[in-house]
């Protein structure tokens, strides 16, 4: 064959056709057969998604004072694939991230090496994508920095031509009042989930719905807005408005703090409740904690003793048999009971009073807190009736307050009682109650015999301020008649009068009513400790139409003499100080037949 130009041209043409055919096949193969694979690859390279964090709802008090809110911060992450100088980055970031410089440099160098290995493995086809954590490795999850600090650090990085650390938006929960109301509010864990208090019980409402942003970016990572993006805005969580009044809370906190320092009890509790609605206006526990600065060494301090701890209530419980007896018309307030001069033999055991007393009216049984008088009332009521009234007052069941971890209490049914139980229960032994149950029962007395469900949440409000859920007062049941409740209230007024067990609990200018409690602490082997007492006082103000009920309870306080170890001596004065300030705060008008406290001031002349 002659290699003339025509033949050469023909061969060249065929060659070109062949080459272009191969190219065409390859193009068709890439565009059609491998379309999905390469589209996905391109999307991975050019599309990014970003989570838009939804702020958690705010918790407020009844006057809309902020108690818990989110603060925007930034969390530092490292991208091993673009780190260029681990030592330089460590120099800039070690201090703000509260890390050791050498440790941070080592961590970044290791990440850089992992990213290189992953890149090689990907090129060799051993893995399809970079392992998680190499390109977004969180640096010290416990530390976040403010927006300003993050911006200045990024500036410093740019100045030094450093690469490899970036910030993601995050938030931390801020509790402006620190430890105040900490047991009611609770706190958040590392995953932003509520632990304890309202943060836990209303987590689903407080937690917002995160949004997202799906966008295309160029080679440098800059967003290409022109090509559009998909975005769903985050939805902020609902705000929770509590029934708590921080003015009252502050009063109780201060007084209980002083008592905690003075008497050094194991625990101390103070609660104020509005009896007509069951609203909790203040709830304080000691010891406490600061939800802004949590440490793992004092987990015990995070217990909400007011709803979790069970105690034998002591004499405060006498309101139950006396209320029941009045309701059943077995006794009237002026019925006389022989208190046996402090020696009452029943079931083979002798029951004592704190001091010998003869014949007392039922009113005086409460005012002077006679155990024998209460026991005799219990015996007259009988096992079944007494048990029914104990349950009717709400003991032995959860109050269903919107706080987690509430105890139901311990009330044994009559078939499990011993022969002595009928004399022990009326004086608050052989029964386990929470401080919240106790104040709720006293509130029933203050509220004409109507037992109200304790409320700590007033309403839940959405982002626009619309009410999502409101919590109207819930009447559980009429425990005793209005007349019987009034008779108990009148009898309880005697507790704060001369001859009563808590004269020191009387608020000058306002007639109050209340009941002391001095319960021996249970020790090992089901016996009682002789030097450990739970001292309490539960009172109401004003007695004729109570605006609030207040409970003060101290577990095992340290007192100088054994004579001081009574509820009226220790808890009574604390109640008086709280109640006086609370009355002022709630603008309760003093009565005119009792002495008034007046400040000596220079009189204005007109």
């Amino acid at each position, binding site marked *: 064959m002659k290699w003339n130009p025509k033949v050469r041209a023909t061969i060249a043409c065929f060659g070109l056709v062949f080459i272009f055919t191969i190219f065409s096949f390859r193009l068709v193969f890439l565009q059609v057969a491998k379309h999905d694979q390469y589209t996905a690859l391109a999307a991975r390279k050019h599309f990014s998604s970003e989570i838009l964090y939804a*702020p958690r709802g705010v918790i407020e008090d009844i006057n809309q*004072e*902020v108690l818990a*809110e*989110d*603060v*925007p911060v930034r969390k530092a992450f490292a991208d091993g694939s673009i780190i260029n100088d681990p030592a330089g980055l460590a120099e800039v970031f070690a201090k703000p991230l509260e890390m050791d410089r050498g440790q941070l440099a080592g961590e970044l160098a290791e990440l850089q090496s992992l990213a290189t290995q992953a890149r090689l493995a990907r090129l060799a086809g051993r893995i399809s994508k970079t392992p998680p954590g190499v390109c977004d490795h969180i640096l010290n999850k416990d530390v976040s920095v*403010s*927006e300003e600090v993050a911006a200045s650090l990024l500036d410093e990085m740019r100045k030094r031509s450093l690469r490899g650390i970036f910030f993601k*938006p995050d938030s931390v929960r*801020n509790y*402006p*009042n*620190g430890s*105040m109301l900490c047991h009611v509010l609770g706190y958040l864990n590392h995953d932003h989930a509520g632990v304890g208090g309202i943060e836990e019980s209303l987590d689903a409402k407080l937690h917002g719905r995160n949004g997202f942003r799906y966008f295309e970016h160029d080679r440098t990572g800059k*967003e*290409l*807005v*022109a090509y559009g993006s998909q975005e769903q805005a985050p939805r902020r969580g609902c705000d929770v408005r509590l029934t708590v009044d*921080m*003015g009252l*809370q*502050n009063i109780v906190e*201060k007084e209980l703090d002083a008592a905690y320092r003075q008497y050094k009890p194991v625990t101390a509790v103070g609660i104020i409740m509005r009896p007509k609605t069951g609203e909790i206006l203040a709830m304080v526990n000691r010891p406490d904690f600061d939800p802004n600065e949590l440490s793992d060494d004092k987990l015990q301090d995070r217990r909400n003793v007011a709803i979790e701890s069970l105690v034998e209530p002591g004499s405060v419980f006498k309101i139950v048999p006396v209320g029941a007896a009045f309701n059943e018309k077995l006794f009237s307030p002026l019925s006389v009971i022989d208190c046996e001069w402090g020696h009452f033999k029943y079931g083979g055991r002798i029951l004592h009073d704190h001091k010998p007393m003869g014949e007392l009216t039922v009113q005086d049984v409460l005012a002077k807190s006679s155990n024998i008088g209460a026991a005799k009332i219990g015996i007259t009521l009988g096992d079944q009736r007494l048990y029914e009234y104990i349950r009717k007052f709400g003991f032995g069941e959860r109050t269903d307050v919107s706080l987690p971890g509430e105890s139901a209490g311990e009330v044994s049914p009559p078939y499990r009682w011993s022969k002595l139980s009928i004399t022990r229960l009326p004086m608050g032994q052989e029964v386990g109650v929470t401080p919240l149950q106790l104040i709720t029962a006293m509130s029933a007395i203050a509220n004409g015999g109507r037992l109200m469900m304790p409320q700590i949440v007033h309403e839940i409000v959405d982002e626009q301020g619309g009410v999502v859920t409101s919590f109207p007062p819930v009447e559980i049941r009429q425990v005793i008649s209005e007349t019987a409740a009034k008779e108990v209230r009148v009898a309880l007024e005697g507790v704060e009068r001369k001859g009563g067990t808590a004269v020191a609990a009387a608020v*000058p*200018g306002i007639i109050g009513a209340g009941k002391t409690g001095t319960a021996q602490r249970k020790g090992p082997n089901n016996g009682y400790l002789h030097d450990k007492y739970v001292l309490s006082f539960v009172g109401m103000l004003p007695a004729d139409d109570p605006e609030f009920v207040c409970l003060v309870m101290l577990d095992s306080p340290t007192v100088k003499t054994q004579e001081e170890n009574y509820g009226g001596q220790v808890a009574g004065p604390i109640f008086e100080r709280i109640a006086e300030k609370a009355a*002022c*705060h709630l*603008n309760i*008008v*003093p009565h*005119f*037949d*009792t*002495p*008034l*406290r*007046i*400040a*000596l001031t220079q009189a204005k002349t007109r």
Partner: protein
Amino acid sequence: MIEVGSVTRWLVAVFFLGVMGLSYVYLKNHLHTTGGQIKSLESELTELTAENDLLRTKISTLSSQKVLQRRLDENFIKMIPIAEDRIVRIYAPEPRTGEIRAVSNEGPAK
């Protein structure tokens, strides 16, 4: 000889295509610039929102009971509690209708 009509038609077509091309480039560029501006405004808005949140946090912290109590204890507003020895207890007379209330009861204590 040049046919004027034909040349004109070509010139119009080329001009039209040129204008179309330039418009496309202009619009594309405009879209890109506007996109950048939108992004920048969005970032600014996010920063302002975050700044606003921070300021709100500062307000709620500074107006919290705890801080106000501390400021009060520091004698910031020059208020001092009335000492026990400056308080007397008196028996107020039974008020007649229309009589002014005792001084201790004046005004709500908020």
